[in-house]
């Protein structure tokens, strides 16, 4: 193993040990541990979905899209409010159309005018889009808490009763979410690897000028990629909204995708997924098993670990492997 990989391997090993350690404690029921694990994985799937939106746009345009969280919220609001007046699937299709229209407007009004500008300029532009979308969402759809009913029973299922005492409680919605996410990821992989548009997207991501020289129209590609990111945001927003209710805190939770992309790498689709799962599981485990220990040892108030765990982990990753687990390593000639 090269010396470069050692710190990151150690970090991952420490994480893994930390996750399994509670099992060795006498007080922890294996069934309960498994429930926490599954809960973490499910949260991770949702993080991964949001992170996927970030990665898609970053890959194709080198733009760090700060508005991805706002897009999740906006799409979820659209579905929630539209579905009050029509069947869910029509609301879904309409919301998807709205996200495509949004992508088109962003390209026309923002991206097209900022071609070849510095990354920071584009970042600021997406920040602006994020705030606009937040406010505009309230203006159009209202600012209450709305619900999306996917028609799945809220009653949790009890599984593996014969293996663990008391069985394991699994949320039906979580399973649907996981299946949806997996399907979406497979679809994206096919799209990127197998279609000529996918090849064009990868080409644009690598080099704008060269892509133009072989006749790839940049503006069309940007509309496509923002539409796909909008669609991913829609799916994430729907699943999330049905779980937690559609409200403005969704936006904040969506920002959890930042540490996820730092962990997985800005340019990697598998990275977004694995990063999401690691952070989802890590923070749940830390909250449930680590915080009681802290309370005991230092007489702290406890709790709240879930809120910062992901960011601390991301910071550590920035120290040992700034490009993330699967990102492209940049070596600049000096």
């Amino acid at each position, binding site marked *: 193993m090269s010396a470069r990989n050692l710190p990151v391997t150690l970090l991952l090993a420490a994480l893994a040990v930390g996750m399994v350690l509670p099992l060795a404690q006498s007080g922890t029921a294996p069934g309960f541990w498994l429930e926490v694990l599954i809960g973490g994985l499910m949260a991770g799937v949702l993080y991964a979905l949001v992170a996927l939106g970030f990665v898609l746009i970053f890959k194709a345009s080198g733009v760090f899209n700060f508005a991805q969280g706002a897009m999740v919220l906006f799409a979820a609001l659209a579905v929630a409010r539209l579905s009050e007046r029509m069947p869910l699937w029509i609301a879904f299709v309409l919301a998807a159309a709205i996200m495509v229209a949004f992508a088109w407007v962003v390209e026309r009004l923002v991206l097209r005018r900022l071609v070849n500008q510095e990354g920071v300029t584009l970042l600021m532009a997406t920040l602006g889009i994020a705030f606009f979308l937040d406010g505009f969402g309230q203006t159009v759809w209202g600012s209450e808490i709305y619900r999306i009913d996917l028609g799945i029973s809220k009653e949790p299922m009890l599984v593996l009763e014969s293996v663990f005492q008391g069985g394991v409680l699994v949320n039906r919605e979580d399973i649907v979410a996981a299946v949806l996410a997996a399907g979406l990821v497979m679809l994206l992989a*096919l*799209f990127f690897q*197998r*279609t*000529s*548009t996918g*090849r*064009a997207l*990868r*080409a644009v*991501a*690598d*080099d704008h*000028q*060269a*892509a*133009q*020289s*072989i*006749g*790839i*129209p940049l503006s069309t590609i940007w509309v496509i990629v923002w539409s796909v990111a909008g669609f991913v945001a829609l799916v994430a927003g729907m699943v999330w909204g049905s779980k937690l209710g559609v409200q403005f805190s969704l936006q904040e939770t969506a920002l959890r995708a930042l540490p996820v992309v730092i962990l997985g790498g800005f340019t990697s689709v598998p990275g977004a997924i694995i990063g999401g799962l690691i952070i989802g599981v890590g923070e749940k485990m830390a909250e449930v098993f680590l915080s009681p220990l802290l309370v005991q040892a230092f007489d702290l108030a406890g709790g709240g670990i879930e809120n910062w765990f992901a960011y601390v982990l991301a910071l550590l990753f920035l120290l040992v492997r700034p490009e993330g687990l699967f990102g*492209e390593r940049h070596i600049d000639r000096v």
Partner: protein
Amino acid sequence: MARDIGDVILSVENISLSFGGVKALTDISFDVREHEIRSIIGPNGAGKSSMLNVINGVYTPQQGRVTLRGRTFSHMDPHEVALAGIARTFQSLALFKGMTVLDNIMSGRNLRMKSNLLMQAIRLGPAEREEIEHRRFCERIIDFLEIQAYRKVPVGRLPYGLQKRVDLGRALAMEPSILLLDEPMAGMNTEEKQDMSRFILDVNDEFGTTIVLIEHDMGVVMDISDRVVVLDYGRKIGDGPPDEVRSDEEVIRAYLGTSH
């Protein structure tokens, strides 16, 4: 040479281009005939790359126009240029580094792919056939450029000389009628330069591709070009067959006379 030089297919007239107060090109006119190898030479900063970028549609000149097969443009868009059958390579490599040699070259076929997304994703009949057909074409280019051994290697890992060949391969995959080469020999050793000259002559000879070439390596250019344009400080100071240009007083003073 056995090739038949044809009629004028590309001409630029009175092109002037400036960036702020800096004049990159002043009143440049020249034409390119079908099947010929036409070079633009000049010292560094003479405006060679700017000229290429005007033809390619990356820069819009303040004055002048470009005529391509009888169609006149005052502004060209890179996408339109590609559709019109003009391909280019880059001085500083602009390859898709994360993609393999084959994928890079296949990306040159992008404009020619017709089947729709869904069919491609699941590799249905016509899409499958189309993919195979394009793949076959790209394999011919790979053979031609003698890079068979590197098909599946990510381009970023290849040595410089080979990356230059892939750049050329991607442009050839577009089946261009006009190929713009931006300093194809820059940074090469003598052997690599000879290889590249041979490829350029072969492309011109076998596919009949018209070639517009920018270079500041005089030796190579004089050997392979049919006609040469000489630029200096954004002005045209010479235009004609290599021998004529070589003996032109002004060209010698501006360019050949100075050692570099």
